[in-house]
């Protein structure tokens, strides 16, 4: 049995005390251990931001790449290394802002990986500018008169782009979060989980309290195979904010015809030379 301590490392954590990220980290650690996955079997691909520091705070394989570019890294990795569990984990600015194009196209491909977005509705690491999910009116050092651009509804984008798994959870609801993570990791295809994550330093609107007052679990009568229902629920925001699996329906996974490469095949790609003579024939 894998223990969550197996995921523990000794790095000093650079998040602010009280930040929602801590609970997310713990939930992930537990989720993985309970799924009996060992650290070497899992990779986290992340971008840049507070959330994106995640792979440093666990003992786990990690590709901490560029701001906004975790999805392409995860996509190829999940497809070429079918033996690994790939998790893309980053912030809302990273995935929906800088990385928006990859977010949009990821669902079309449906690679077999999980996508966890720490959605604190703000740019944390760069000190509090609006993110694509910041609410209208939120004032920041850049949005001095308040945000005017309509916030993105990333769940809807996912749903209309052909997502095979769309879920939301909340950092203040750790048990639920852990379950959602597990479902996402077990899903075959791109499993997208938006995580409401209070930023205690810069987001004075969407606080723990604010979320707590609004968040509820999707009822048992919510049918995650019903796309229209999922859309309806995904449009709900404000007084009440649903969490849970909005939608799940398996479909063709990216590169599913591509074979699982063995460690030997990866290490020594030589065995594939057999058809060279045939190929050379084309050139005479």
């Amino acid at each position: 049995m894998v223990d969550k301590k197996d995921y523990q490392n000794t790095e000093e954590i650079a998040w602010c005390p009280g930040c929602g990220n801590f609970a997310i980290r713990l939930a992930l650690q537990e989720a993985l251990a309970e799924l009996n996955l060992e650290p070497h079997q899992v990779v986290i691909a992340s971008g840049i931001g507070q959330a994106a520091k995640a792979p440093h705070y666990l003992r786990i394989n990690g590709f901490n790449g560029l701001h906004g570019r975790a999805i392409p890294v995860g996509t190829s990795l999940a497809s070429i290394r079918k033996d690994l569990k790939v998790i893309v984990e980053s912030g809302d600015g990273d995935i929906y802002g800088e990385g928006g194009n990859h977010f949009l196209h990821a669902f079309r491909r449906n690679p077999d990986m999980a996508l966890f977005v720490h959605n604190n509705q703000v740019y944390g690491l760069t000190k509090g500018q609006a993110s694509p999910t910041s609410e209208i009116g939120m004032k920041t050092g850049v949005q001095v008169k308040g945000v005017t651009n309509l916030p993105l509804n990333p769940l809807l984008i996912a749903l209309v782009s052909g997502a095979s798994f769309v879920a939301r959870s909340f950092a203040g609801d750790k048990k639920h979060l852990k379950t959602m993570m597990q479902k996402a990791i077990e899903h075959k295809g791109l499993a997208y989980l938006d995580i409401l994550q209070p930023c205690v330093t810069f987001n004075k609107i969407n606080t723990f309290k604010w979320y707590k007052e609004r968040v509820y679990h999707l009822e048992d009568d919510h049918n995650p195979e019903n796309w229209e229902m999922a859309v309806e629920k995904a449009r709900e925001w404000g007084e009440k904010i649903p969490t849970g699996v909005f939608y799940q329906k398996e479909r063709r996974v990216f590169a599913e015809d591509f074979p699982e490469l063995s460690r030997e095949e990866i290490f020594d790609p030589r065995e594939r030379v057999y058809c060279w003579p045939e190929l050379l024939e084309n050139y005479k």
Partner: protein
Amino acid sequence: MFNIRIGGEAGQGMNTIGTLLAKSLLRMGYHVFTSKDYMSRIRGGHNFSDIRFGSKPLQSGTEKVDILLALNKETWEIHKNSMTESGLLVYDPDDFSPEGDGPEKAGFPFLKKAEEIGDKRIAGVIALGLIHRIFDLSPDHLKKILSEKFSGEILEKNIKGLDLGYQEGEEKFSIKPNPDLKGTKLISGNDAIGFGALVAGVQFYSAYPMTPSTGVLNFLSAQGEKFKILVEQAEDEIAAINMALGASYGGVRAMTGTSGGGFSLMVEGLGLSGITETPLVILNGQRPGPATGLPTRTEQGDLEFVIHASQGEFPRIVLAPRDVFNAFSQTVRAFNLAEKYQLPVIILSDQFLGDSEQTISDFKPEDFKIDRGKLLKDYKEEKPYLRYRYTEDGISPRLIPGAKDQVVLVDSDEHNEAGNIIEDAETRTKMVEKRMKRMEKITEEMEPPLYKGPKPEKVELILVSWGSNFGPVEEARIGLEEEGIKVGHYSFVDIWPLPRGDWEKTLKEKEWALIENNFSGQLGSLLQKREIGYPEFFLKKYDGRPFTGDEIKRRIKEEVANRG
């Protein structure tokens, strides 16, 4: 040596005709060199292909045309002044009537005859029959080629057309094939690069379409299934390079390819390869810039850009293949260097090299070695694996992630040996030094420019070229030598880091000419940093067209004459 030019509108099928002709010539035992001049449009406009052939190796296009197959009047107008004195125009009198004097003309109603045979698409094959006869060449090889492509009625009609054209032609030129040419192949630069990647064991290729690099994407897509290569068209070039890096981190050999505009978008990813020490091969097929520039033309305008691209400082290698076979072998080498030194290797090609076809001698792909450097399949030491362990040579063992009980962490922030973010001055300094340390060994490994010609002491001038200019410059050099003008030629392929060698001393002492397909002389600028000084003569071209051997020869001759 003859040059056959086929010109017309985009969409008139010049490529098919050209390919059939080139293959037929190849199988008969000629050296062949083909090049393409096409517009950034799908139909209309003016495009042309040159097929040069002869009994000696050919390495460049030429300004002169022996046979012009003009599919429309415009072709005739544009190219009539390029024809040799003994040249011949081949055309369809139903298309146009070439007025005035000028070269000999052979009109034949290709289209009408094709329609008579029952398929207007074979007009081109009729013309090929005619051309075979003009050179006194048997059409048998072409028949074989057609039979590999077609069958049944279509094949019959093609053969009929070919025979008809052959009957109607008249012998005019004659040239002996080279009996030694056995097993040679005719291959384009782009296919050669794709082939090199195959031979190197590439398992992942991601790209976004961009002329003139798309040929490599097409090649690998076609071979993907057979060779177990995952080929993906990305949503943009940023995704392409980051996908390739993800795959490389995963342990497979990965590559991406693009042209200047796409390379611009990959610049940040290039630095990611640099700081994470993730091996990556990047093809930049150059075309004239800035920005969109001339999408289907050629230039050597990106050299200093690719050398300095991305913020901060990190080692990289830039290789500019000199010809088609070299494009193949340098690609294999690029993968080996990328893994040996754990860094990005840029293959700097261009439209001229990518789209030209050249005969290459027989070779065994399996003779090209794969060297994966310090890649570890497994790790079983006591101490935990550290991705960025400090070592003597600055290169840390690289573990394929997934090894039991070990984790592999890479980071685009400055990091410690374990790959974790750090900010302290001491670790930063050590990591910069670890990364940069590799430069020395790499510089030693870089090959000095290839020297061609009589000993430097014996020549009047040394021509200095890089990348795909090799062929045209060589043709010029040999041509000059035939006329008694002795010049040497340094051809750079390993261009960054700039290799050390005797060439530095030679160039400091001798007069030299710089030949570049750009405006500002970018190799020249690298040489100045080495205190080689300025060239006596800078032959530059930036109109989007490649140099030809005869053009360089003429210009150098003038120069030598002027200088007395």
